[in-house]
């Protein structure tokens, strides 16, 4: 060997790869996104706090461009667009929340019941039911519900929730199966813990992560679905400030009053992107 081997002074491996600092940055980004989401929830619950005008009052000149008094301008009959968007968030957001809640509760219930005894009678019956509902498009189911119970974002939301529950059921069932192979789950069972307690104490805290991520993603999808139904004239009806309604009402004037359709459109896009990003961050954080 060479006796003159020179010892390099600097670190031999090049500066650390970007992934090394990843987890912390991801957590910070998640916190920022969750803070934004919390602000949206606050607005959705109490829109009048930040709205400047009555969303239904005709108190301005039609088609006033965005500016000092009317931040987002006014629509074709002079209503303040900013206040309408803020109040519209309430309907869009809360109806989507209802859809996701229905999907989550129903899906988790079905998933847990079929995951308790995989391959059992209950599992097989529920699987067939799930697959049957899966074959029906969510929008079709929503149209059927609207036909039966009348127009409205919340009716559409329940129907969409039922349709989306199938995905949740599948996911939860899969996670249940996966958790059966965890040694500490089996250990809990062999020391006499009841199946319900094993579920609450060991399984759910271990596997809830993907469900959380899936929920955030479907929140965004539900907002889009409800908006689409309103846009097509099946969800909320004018003069409701629901975002789908705002977009469809404003698109006729797109050429000379772009803001009437475009601002609610941007708002919807931004909220859905935010929710998808949260879903992604939750997913990545797991792996």
């Amino acid at each position, binding site marked *: 060997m060479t006796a003159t081997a020179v*010892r390099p002074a600097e670190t031999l491996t090049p500066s650390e790869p970007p992934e090394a600092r990843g987890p912390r940055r991801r957590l910070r980004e998640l916190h920022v996104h969750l803070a934004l989401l919390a602000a949206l929830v606050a607005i959705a619950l109490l829109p009048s706090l930040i709205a400047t005008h009555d969303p239904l009052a005709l108190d301005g000149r039609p088609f006033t461009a965005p500016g000092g008094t009317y931040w987002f301008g006014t629509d074709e009959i002079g209503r303040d667009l900013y206040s309408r968007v803020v109040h519209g968030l309430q309907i869009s957001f809360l109806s989507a929340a209802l859809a996701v809640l229905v999907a989550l509760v129903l899906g988790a219930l079905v998933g847990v019941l079929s995951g308790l005894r995989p391959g059992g009678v209950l599992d097989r019956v529920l699987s067939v039911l799930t697959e049957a509902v899966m074959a029906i498009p969510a929008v079709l189911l929503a149209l059927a519900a609207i036909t039966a119970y009348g127009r409205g974002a919340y009716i559409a939301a329940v129907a969409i929730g039922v349709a989306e529950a199938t995905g949740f059921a599948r996911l939860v069932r899969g996670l249940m199966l996966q958790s059966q192979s965890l040694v500490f789950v089996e250990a809990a069972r062999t*020391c006499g813990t009841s199946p319900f307690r094993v579920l609450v104490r060991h399984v759910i805290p271990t596997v809830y992560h993907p469900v959380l991520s899936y929920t955030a993603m479907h929140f965004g999808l539900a907002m889009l679905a409800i908006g689409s139904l309103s846009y097509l004239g099946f969800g909320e009806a004018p003069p409701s400030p629901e975002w789908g309604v705002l977009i469809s009402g404003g698109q006729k004037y797109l050429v000379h009053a772009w803001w009437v359709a475009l601002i609610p459109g941007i708002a919807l896009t931004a909220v859905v992107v935010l929710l998808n990003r949260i879903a992604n961050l939750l997913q990545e954080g797991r792996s």
Partner: protein
Amino acid sequence: MTETLLEISDLTVTYERGSTVDTALAEVGLSLRRGSVTAVIGESGSGKSTLAHAVVRLLPDNGAITRGTVVLDGEDVLRRTEREFRPLRGRHVGFVPQDPIASLNPTKSIGAQVKESFALAGSSLSARQVEERVAGDLRDLGFSDPEALLRSYPHELSGGMRQRVLVAIAFSQRPQLVIADEPTSALDVLVGQDVLRRLHALRAKHGTTVLLITHDLALASRNADDVVVLQRGRIVESGPIAEVFADPQHTYTRSLLASSARLVAGRVLDVGEAYRRFARAEPADVATVDPVIELAGVARTFRAGGREVVAVRDLSLTVPRGATFALVGESGSGKTTTSRIILGLERADRGSVRVFGNDVVGLGRGGMKALRRRMQVVYQSPFESLNPRLSLREIVAEPLDAYRVGSRQERRARVVELLDRVQLPPSYAERRPRELSGGQRQRVAIARALALEPELLVLDEPVSALDATIQAQVLTLLTELQRDLGLTYFLVTHDLGVVADVASQVAVMRRGRLVEHGSTAEVVLRPKHDYTQALLAV
């Protein structure tokens, strides 16, 4: 050519974990003589795998070599860029990994993967020469039909065959140095022995220098010329293995050697000798009054996707009260299925399973719950059997909660008492499993198993996930608990060293059948079946 092939000096490797930087190797220096086998020994966390990976520069992303030189054949390879270094892997340094299952690509044939190693190393051999060399190597490694092997896919091969393929790949470029990182620890003992024997033959044929990373002292002592002892990233002792093992200078080396019951004065004892010297169990009466477990004609077949696997066929055995009954076998022998049948986690297709006189097969939910109170289990890996989210108090109290034993205060007091029983301080009650070492975790698992004052413990490989010094401590604890509490142990293990240490009776299982059973003395000292003799000779 100089005498020394590899000279490592002052090597320091750090890992960044969150905001802290851990030093995995500190100022490590060692040199390998050409053609020698050097064993690197140490317990988990000692940095032995880091050493292996640093030499071939395959550290994980958060690892960095912060200082030192690795001089291979006169050249400091750390001064090369990654791009310049890449051709060295394979051509000058071969690597035999620990896990033969994860190390082969399941979608490519064996032939494609063996030939790939020639392409990656930039080999100048013609296709024909490559074929000849590969066929010759595979024959040396004990494959009688290399062509058929090359056409097969990894899933068609057993663990031992895969590991031999990986040995062939490591040697394919005739490297000067081969690093074997725990090459047999994922394999059954007899298979591992065969792989090592063939690796040795190839090494001798080509004069290859080998760096053997292992936690198994007996294996090191039988296979290596030199030894390097690592403790927490530092070399505490090194030298010719016979000298170091016969007369260890450092206290850590001494404690390592003391924990391996089969190494005495630098010599590996066979299991029989170890038994004569160290057995702790009293020779038990085979006469069975009031047996705890009775299996008669038990069979279990698994069916999956049209394939049938017979796990247990026609098994009968009796475990007397107070005994430590060891069920020994290699993976796939059916020993784990048998223990799960006893625990009621798996049903038997045929035969009768009686535990404390109750027929487990016909037992309803209530009966099973009552039975489980008297029969608890300790799993192999304490890293998996404890819920990482719960505190030790919650873990140990779980069976007490499940059976609603006593009041809240009584349960709290009982948890402290149980922790004390397994020699853990009461202050540990609020800790979480990740704050504990492997041995401490296994103590917690034992405390949980003892919570309901059971009469029978099923011990499923209770020490095989632990380091050697820790194994000895846990076995001592189990022996004391048995003596104090009058427990019966049903011990499932592949390790005859453990059997010789603690078992009073042994049953040897192979391919679902019992090939031999009797008192430990009978089986260990006078084995009748060839298979038992082969296992004992390891």
